[in-house]
C-alpha cells in the first residue's frame, strides 16, 4: 500500500513525519475472531457463531495512527484487542516486527507485550482503586524491568506524570481523588512508561466532557510526536478520529468497508456506508447543518449472529442490488492508498 501523505498541519509539522517507509510495524492478514454463543452440550444444541472480526487485513507503520470507526457491534474493539492477543484468534496472522504473534508461547508473548499497550474507555474503571497513582504507573516498569531500583522507578514515574500533565507530587493519591480526564492521563502514563511501540486506544475520550476530550487528544498527539509510537485509535466519534488519524478504517459487522488516508476518506468517501456515516454526524454549525443533504440509513445494524448474505451492509444500503446479496465484494484499491469493498462504490473517474 502506498504511504499516506505526510501531514502538513501545524500539529504534526514539528514532529517526525510518520515514518511510512520501510517494513511495517504490524501486518495483519485475514484475521478472524469468532465467538461462540449459546449452545448446550446436554441438548446438543449447536452454539451460534458471531464473526466479530471476519477476514481483516491491514498494515501499520511506525509512528502512524490508524483510526478504526464503525457503529457498536462492528468489531472495532475486538480487532484492537485481538491485535494485542488479548482475545483468541480463530485464524489469520498478526505479524509484529516479522514475528507471527499467534505462534508465540506465553513467555515470549509476555516479552513482546512490553512494546504493546492499551488505553481503555472508562478511565476510572480501568485503574485499580486500591493502588496509588504511583504504584499504578510503576507496575508495568516493575514487570518488565525488575532490576530497576526504587529511586530509579520513582524518578521515571514522576517524569512520566509530568509529561502527561499530572502533578508529580500527586504520586501517593488514589484514583478516586482524580477527575475523569485526569484518570485518563494516569491510564496514558501507565501505557507509556515502558515507551511502547504501539498503543491501542479503545474509545479513550468517549467518556469525557468535550473540553476535556480536546486536552486528551492533544496530549496523545504531542506524545506521539515526541516518542514516535504508533496508535490504533478506536472511536465511534468520526470527527475525533479524523482529527488524530493518518489513515482510517471503516468497519461494518466485522468486515472492512473502506480504508484510506484520512483526507481521502473524509473528503471523498467511496463506500455508501462511509458516506452515510459522514452525513449522519451533526456539524456544530447551524447554517451548514440545516442546509446539507444527508443520507439517513433505515433500520439498525443487523444481528451479528445472523448477518446478511453477501455484503453485510446491503440491508441498509441505498444502492444494494441482487449481486450484493450473493457476493461479498473484495476490498480493492480505487485509487492509490484508498481501498473500498463495494460493488457500487463511487470509483473516481478514469478507474
Amino acid at each position, binding site marked *: 500500500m502506498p504511504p499516506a501523505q505526510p501531514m502538513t498541519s501545524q500539529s504534526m509539522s514539528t514532529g517526525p513525519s510518520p515514518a511510512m517507509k520501510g517494513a511495517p510495524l504490524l501486518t495483519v492478514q485475514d484475521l478472524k475472531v469468532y465467538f461462540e454463543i449459546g449452545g448446550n452440550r446436554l441438548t446438543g444444541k449447536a452454539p451460534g457463531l458471531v464473526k466479530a472480526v471476519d477476514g481483516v487485513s491491514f498494515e501499520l507503520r511506525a509512528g502512524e495512527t490508524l483510526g478504526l470507526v464503525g457503529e457498536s457491534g462492528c468489531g472495532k474493539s475486538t480487532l484492537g484487542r485481538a491485535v494485542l492477543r488479548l482475545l483468541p484468534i480463530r485464524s489469520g496472522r498478526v505479524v509484529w516486527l516479522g514475528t507471527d504473534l499467534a505462534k508465540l508461547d506465553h513467555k515470549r508473548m509476555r516479552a513482546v507485550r512490553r512494546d504493546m499497550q492499551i488505553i481503555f474507555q472508562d478511565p476510572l474503571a480501568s485503574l485499580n482503586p486500591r493502588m496509588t497513582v504511583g504504584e499504578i504507573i510503576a507496575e508495568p516498569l516493575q514487570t518488565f524491568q525488575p532490576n530497576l531500583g526504587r529511586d530509579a522507578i520513582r524518578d521515571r514515574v514522576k517524569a512520566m506524570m509530568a509529561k502527561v500533565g499530572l502533578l508529580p507530587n500527586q504520586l501517593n493519591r488514589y484514583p478516586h481523588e482524580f477527575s475523569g480526564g485526569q484518570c485518563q492521563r494516569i491510564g496514558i502514563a501507565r501505557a507509556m512508561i515502558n515507551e511502547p511501540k504501539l498503543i491501542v486506544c479503545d474509545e479513550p475520550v468517549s467518556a469525557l*466532557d468535550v473540553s476535556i476530550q480536546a*486536552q486528551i487528544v492533544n496530549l496523545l498527539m504531542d506524545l506521539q510526536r515526541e516518542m514516535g509510537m504508533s496508535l490504533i485509535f478506536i472511536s465511534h466519534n468520526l470527527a475525533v478520529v479524523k482529527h488524530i488519524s493518518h489513515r482510517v478504517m471503516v468497519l461494518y459487522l466485522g468486515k472492512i468497508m473502506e480504508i484510506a488516508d484520512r483526507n481521502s476518506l473524509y473528503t471523498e468517501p467511496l463506500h455508501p456506508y462511509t458516506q452515510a456515516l459522514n452525513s449522519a454526524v451533526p*456539524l456544530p454549525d447551524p447554517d451548514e447543518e440545516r442546509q446539507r443533504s444527508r443520507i439517513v440509513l*433505515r433500520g439498525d445494524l443487523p444481528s451479528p449472529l445472523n448477518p446478511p448474505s453477501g455484503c453485510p451492509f446491503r440491508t441498509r444500503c441505498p444502492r444494494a442490488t441482487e449481486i450484493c446479496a450473493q457476493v461479498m465484494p473484495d476490498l480493492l484499491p480505487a485509487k492509490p492508498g484508498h481501498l473500498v469493498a463495494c460493488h457500487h462504490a463511487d470509483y473516481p473517474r478514469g478507474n
Partner: protein
Amino acid sequence: MTKVLEVSDLRTTFTTPEGEVKAVGGVEFTINQGEVLGVVGESGSGKSQIFMSIMGLLARNGHAKGSVKFKGDEILGLDVKALNKVRGVRMSMIFQDPMTSLNPYLSVRRQMTEVLVLHKGMSESEAAKNAVEMLERVQIPEAKQRLNMYPHEFSGGMRQRVMIAMALLCGPELLIADEPTTALDVTVQAQILELLVGLQRDVGMAIALITHDLGVIARLADRVMVMYAGNIVEKGSVRDLFKDPQHPYTEGLLESMPRLNETEATRLQTIGGQPPNLQNLPSGCSFRDRCRYAFERCVTERPLLTAFAEGRSKACHLPSL
C-alpha cells in the same frame, strides 16, 4: 408568543454528608410555544437537574426553590397528585438511556396504555389502539405485534422510539429531552433527530433539548442556553451563539470540538483545567480559573446574566470578546 414555561430564580441544592451542593444556582429562562430550547453544558453543570427539579423528579436529598410556571400556573412545590395532572400529560420527559428508563418487567403495551387509562380515562382497548398509532408515528415497523413485546426485545434505537412514543401519548405541550441520542450510534442518532424535527414541525410542541453535543444543538435548537457550574453563562439564538460566542466558556467549547468539515487538523484549542467542584466554588466567576481572559474583577465579583444585545445575554465582566 405564548410562554409554555417560565422559570425564575430556580435554585436546586442537594444535602450530602459533606455539606450542601448547589447544583443549580438561580436560573431564569422561558420556553415559548413551538420552540426548541437547547441546553448545553458539561457533566455537573446542572443542565439535567434544572429539568429534574421542574418535573419533581429530584433525588430525595434534593430541594428546589424559586418559581416554575407552566402556562402561567406555578408548578414548583406542588404535591404529587397535583403535579401528576401536568407531568406526563402536558409536559413529558425522555431520558438518555432507554433501557433503564423503561420497565423491563412490563410489556410495552402495559407501559404505554397505563398513562392513557390513568390520565385520559380511556378503556384498555381504546388506549391500545392509540398506542399502536403512536408507535407507527415514530416509525416502528409492525407496531401492532411489537406492542406486546418487552423492552429487551427492542434495539437501542427502537427503545428510544418507544420512549418518545410514550412521551407523546397525551399530546404534551412541552417535551423535555435529556440527552436523547447520546447512547445511540450516529446513524441511529440521525434517525431519531429526523423524527424529532418532524414531530416538532407537525405537532408544534415546545422542546427542551439537553445535550453536550453542539452538533445536535446546531441541528435542532432555535435558542440555546449554555450552563456552567449551575448557572447560565450565555443565552441567545442558535445562530448568534455559534457564529459569535460572547462568553469565554462558549467560545472555548466551540473551539475544542474537532470538526468533520475542517480541512487541516490544526491543534485543538482546549479549555485548561477541570470543571469546578460544586461544593467549593471559587469566589467571583465560577469559570475564572479556566478563563484565558480573567482579570481582578472576576475574582471579587460574580458576573450576573445581563442582556447585551437583542435576545442575547451573558454572565461575564468583559464587554465583548
